[in-house]
């Protein structure tokens, strides 16, 4: 599987940002003329310093906030009665964003519940989603009883319970310790291989992005824009052997140089 070597990504794109710009009400230009193609089946990381608009781009794709100008196209999506594309997305925030008063089961059930799926009808799908993240025994637990890594797993299960075609992840593991983070990276790749969904992953870690991605888009800040687009042509599964290989180191150097250029282009931090 080498989704990065797609000959014409336009034909295969699941979502496309066309000349997207976003200016916040306080005048901050978060994005200026962003063009981005996300091909079906790829693992695309947006990498850049803070303020480069990578999270903003992700939120615009998720439908949280309209772009100031430009458009978001869903070439493969079905359109619902109101003319809005049925995006089939799952979203994982930087924080687990769980409802503290609800059990793990109720938290994972939520996306289905909001679409009118009853508790009984959702039971199997919730159980499957929890099994995917290895938490099937914790469905009656409350979020406060879980560790940071487990909360993030619940959050991932919730994003996957609707079986989305596109998984949007906004620095999901940034607040976790290195060991937990490594484990979740490995597990995420397993799920990616197993279920074949597309991932758009926002991160500020060079090592994480090279480990996970089939393609890395490097962004610079003020105004947010794309400055580099790097395909990581290494086969999955990517295990510990890959993370200690010369190829990995080579890619890390390449991406790191690009990130330094991005920070240099901003020229103040």
């Amino acid at each position, binding site marked *: 599987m080498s989704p990065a070597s797609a000959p014409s990504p336009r034909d295969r794109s699941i979502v496309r940002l066309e000349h997207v710009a976003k200016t916040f009400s306080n005048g901050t230009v978060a994005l200026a003329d962003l063009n981005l193609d996300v091909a079906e089946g790829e693992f695309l990381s947006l990498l850049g310093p803070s303020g480069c608009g990578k999270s903003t781009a992700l939120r615009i794709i998720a439908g949280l906030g309209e772009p100031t100008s430009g458009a978001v196209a869903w070439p493969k999506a079905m359109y619902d009665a109101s003319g809005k594309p049925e995006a089939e997305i799952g979203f994982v925030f930087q*924080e687990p964003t769980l409802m503290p*008063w*609800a059990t793990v089961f109720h938290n994972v059930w939520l996306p289905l519940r*909001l679409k009118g799926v009853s508790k009984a009808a959702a039971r199997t799908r919730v159980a499957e989603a929890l099994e995917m*993240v*290895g938490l099937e025994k914790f469905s009656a*637990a409350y979020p406060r009883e879980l560790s940071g890594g487990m909360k993030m797993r619940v959050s991932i299960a919730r994003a996957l319970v609707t079986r989305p075609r596109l998984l949007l992840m906004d620095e999901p593991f940034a607040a976790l310790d290195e060991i937990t983070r490594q484990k979740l990276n490995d597990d995420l790749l397993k*799920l990616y291989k197993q279920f074949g969904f597309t991932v758009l992953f926002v991160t500020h870690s060079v090592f994480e992005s090279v480990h996970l991605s089939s393609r890395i888009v490097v962004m610079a800040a003020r105004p947010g824009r794309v400055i580099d687009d790097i395909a990581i042509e290494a086969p999955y599964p990517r295990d510990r052997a890959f993370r200690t290989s010369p190829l990995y180191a080579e890619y890390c150097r390449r991406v790191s140089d690009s990130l330094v250029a991005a920070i240099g282009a901003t020229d103040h931090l």
Partner: protein
Amino acid sequence: MSAAEPVDTAVPAAAPRPPSGPRMTEQVLRVIVPIAMLVALVALWHWYVVAYNVPHYILPAPERVAQAMIEDWPTLSGALFVTLKITFAALAIALVGGVLIAVLLAQSKWIEIALYPYMVILQVTPIVAIAPLILIYAPTTQSALLICAWIVAFFPVLSNTTQGLKSTDHNLLNLFELYGASRWQTLFLLKLPAALPYFLVGLRIAGGLALIAAVVAEFAAGSAGAGSGLAFRILESQYRLNIPRLFAALILLCATGVAIFFATSLVSHLLLRKWHESAIRREN
């Protein structure tokens, strides 16, 4: 992510351990210390009255108060029942009204801007000052008392619930928006549960205030006769210098207030114990 793998290094959702050793001792002491304190205070009171030969129309001895409580129980219990009826009716209407208006205010910024000033005016005007006017307008004295108690009890419920509804986690709001939740779904599944801890604080304050307002309003109304509450019995005892009965009525009021406080605290604990930080025992 196979099921067999151990997940992180976290503690599983273990059932709370039965109290043992120091926990047990602490729980016993929590009951014994307040009781011992009470006994000591009553003993001091008794000693003072006997030692200084205080006349009972100034300060009656504890046993005289107990005697008054037993002998006057038919009168006092009737008055207590009237006061309780007003307090709880006012509290119930305050809870329903406070929550409904808070939901209304949370629906739109403009509704809030239009209505909130009047809620504040109702709250800041001393109830004793409005009571005479309410007594004129209200059909019966009982309903006037109810209105007074309601005005006082309603604001803490309203302001706390409004604050709670506005303090919903923004990420969770985004999540609901992302999954296309309707206004009602967002209200019932997200905003109201998130506001629950705030509402419960309002409930605890309102419970105490409803009793205070019921008594104050009765003082202001100066109502008399068979259908009157504890406030009237206190005034009456004062005029007749029946100080033991005054003390007995006062003790009933205190006990009612304490009972309301414990009841509302218990409700709060039961609703929050599973998930809210305030109900969790911190251990370092």
